[in-house]
């Protein structure tokens, strides 16, 4: 455990600390974001190892140095612009301590020494391949003897594990499993910091309530998953927590450059952790793009063209094209590492094992079985819906004053991702009963975690979180020229 902690702090956290500091500033998310950014850099390094050549460590140094130089350059040029809003240090430290405490309790289960099925069959196998350099990785992924390991799975977990092997040796394979568990905790920490930020503008009592809610969400993350999956080397809680982090920072917290970039990083991490993570990240990124670059309904109506207004219309068309290009950029740029891996995997002939052939079972029977399989894992839905209705009725104005995103954003992110997983089960090729039996408790982690996070957010708001802005305290400026029409309450 101590060696894994050293890898996460020194090997992943140090290269990520400067970029994380530039983004998170005094937010308690800083300490959790830095190792995640380091892991993201390791994933990009693994992609370069596979696509170009050389070793993971070489590319990791290149990527980390490039990212840090870029941050320093940005910092020097941004020095003239007004500083980003940051919470007080005491508030950040208190939040960080509570969230860390909530994460340490479930992490003590690392002493059990669990290595789960996928931890062995998928992630340690890939970790050893990445650790072996370009040739081993390429031939290993293409080797039909390794088909069982889902060779097309994205590289973040193997890359972080291989970096651990590079730093502490391959004497004990468990170190890679423990690094995955610690990164999972970091992703939950970013979620917790986001939930705590909901109460950041409220009275001290409501701030404390938000911090408690943040700690609860972190513990719930481990609870809905079970420690077998949470600390046994599985990547499911990691991508789910990262995706929920993107939802909280990108679709719930008030619009700001800081929240947007944290959301992008979380979505990027989810996209290079698992295939479901990439699909969910794309959904969340599209919603974030629409929140930050809202659709203007008036522009969708076709105006009657007057000869004298043709010049104005050209300007409007140019503006619309630019806006759609921005929206596309908001989606593609953060998802680039995940999309690059998907492209690279297809390029070297890897295919997703779940769509190789058509199923003998009828779609209707698969659909029915999927509903029955998913339902027991979604018991939180009725309560979350009831709290949503009550929240919209009683504390909607508090939510508006706090400039939090409309709850429809979070619920849309929940529904679309759940629909994607559902359709995957219905249209996929493996026998549905076996498939659900071996995976549905993991594919439903994200939908569960999103709704538990929503409960915690409503709890913080109901306590008065963010409702009472101090006079003269200005909200962080949105990085966009806002023209919202879809969600009137969404600042």
């Amino acid at each position, binding site marked *: 455990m101590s060696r894994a902690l050293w890898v996460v702090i020194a090997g992943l956290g140090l290269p990520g600390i400067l970029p994380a500091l530039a983004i998170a500033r005094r937010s308690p998310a800083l300490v959790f974001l830095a190792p995640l950014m380091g892991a993201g850099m390791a994933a990009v390094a693994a992609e370069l190892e596979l696509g170009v050549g050389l070793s993971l460590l070489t590319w990791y140094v290149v990527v980390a140095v490039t990212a840090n130089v870029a941050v320093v350059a940005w910092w020097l040029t941004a020095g003239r612009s007004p500083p980003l809003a940051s919470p007080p240090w005491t508030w950040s430290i208190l939040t960080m301590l509570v969230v860390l405490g909530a994460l340490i309790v*479930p992490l003590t289960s690392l002493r059990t020494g669990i290595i789960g099925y996928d931890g062995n069959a998928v992630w340690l196998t890939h970790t*050893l*391949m990445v650790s072996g350099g370009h040739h081993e990785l390429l031939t*290993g992924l293409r080797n039909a003897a*390794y088909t069982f390991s889902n060779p097309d799975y994205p590289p973040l977990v193997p890359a972080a594990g291989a970096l651990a092997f590079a730093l502490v040796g391959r004497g004990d394979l*468990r170190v890679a499993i423990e690094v995955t568990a610690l990164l999972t905790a970091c992703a939950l920490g970013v979620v917790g910091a986001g939930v705590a930020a909901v109460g950041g503008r409220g009275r001290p009592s409501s701030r404390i309530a938000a911090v408690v809610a943040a700690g609860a969400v972190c513990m719930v993350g481990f*609870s809905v998953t079970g*420690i077998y999956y949470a600390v046994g080397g599985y990547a499911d809680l990691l991508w789910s927590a990262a995706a929920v982090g993107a939802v909280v920072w990108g679709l719930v917290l008030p619009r700001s450059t800081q929240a947007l970039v944290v959301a992008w990083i979380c979505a990027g991490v989810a996209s290079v952790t698992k295939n479901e993570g990439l699909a969910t990240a794309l959904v969340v990124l599209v919603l974030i793009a629409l929140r930050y670059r809202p659709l203007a309904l008036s522009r969708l109506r076709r105006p009657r063209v007057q000869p004298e207004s043709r010049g104005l219309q050209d300007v409007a068309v140019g503006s619309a094209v630019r806006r759609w290009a921005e929206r596309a950029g908001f989606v593609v740029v953060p998802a680039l590492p995940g999309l690059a891996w998907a492209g690279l995997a297809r390029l070297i002939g890897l295919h997703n094992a779940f769509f190789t052939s058509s199923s003998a079972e009828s779609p209707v029977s698969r659909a029915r079985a999927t509903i029955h399989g998913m339902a027991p894992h979604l018991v*939180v839905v009725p309560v979350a819906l009831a709290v949503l209705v009550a929240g919209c009725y009683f504390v909607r104005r508090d939510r508006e004053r706090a400039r939090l995103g409309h709850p429809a954003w979070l619920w849309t992110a929940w529904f679309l991702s759940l629909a994607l997983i559902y359709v995957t089960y219905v249209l996929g090729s493996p026998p549905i009963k076996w498939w659900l039996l071996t995976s549905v408790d993991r594919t439903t982690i994200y939908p569960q975690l999103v709704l538990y996070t929503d409960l915690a957010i409503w709890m913080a708001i109901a306590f008065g979180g963010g409702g009472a802005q101090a006079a003269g305290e200005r909200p962080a400026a949105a990085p966009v020229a806002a023209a919202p029409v879809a969600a009137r309450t969404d600042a």
Partner: protein
Amino acid sequence: MDVRRPDGEPGRIAENGASVRAGRRPVGTLIGCGLIVSAAAVMLGLSVRHGMTVNAWELSPAGMKAWAKFDRQEECIYHAIRSEVPEGAAVYIHDAAVYNAQRLAELSTLWAVPQPSPATARWTLSLVPGQACSGLSLEVRPR
């Protein structure tokens, strides 16, 4: 500047134009907030409790002993492959237990090269009942 909010609560306008609550919430809203906080807290609490129940076996002495045995077995097989199979050897993994076959492929990685068919392999690997690795032994047969 004093104003009255649409929900009847007194407030004032801040410098930035945002309405700022000056008084307490109406009783109805307080009851609603209480319901929200209670429902959310109960669900979050139940989830944490459920996690404790689910994890009980893994955290029990018997569970930890079983996982420690599994860990030792993994390490033992890993080293057995490296001591009994030549480096870079083409191996075919033939084990009736799918999970054992996958473990052998995983633990061979970076040392031997698993082959999809026996035709191209020089050695066949399997795990058989034995004493060497906590109830299992590595069997290496030349082809």
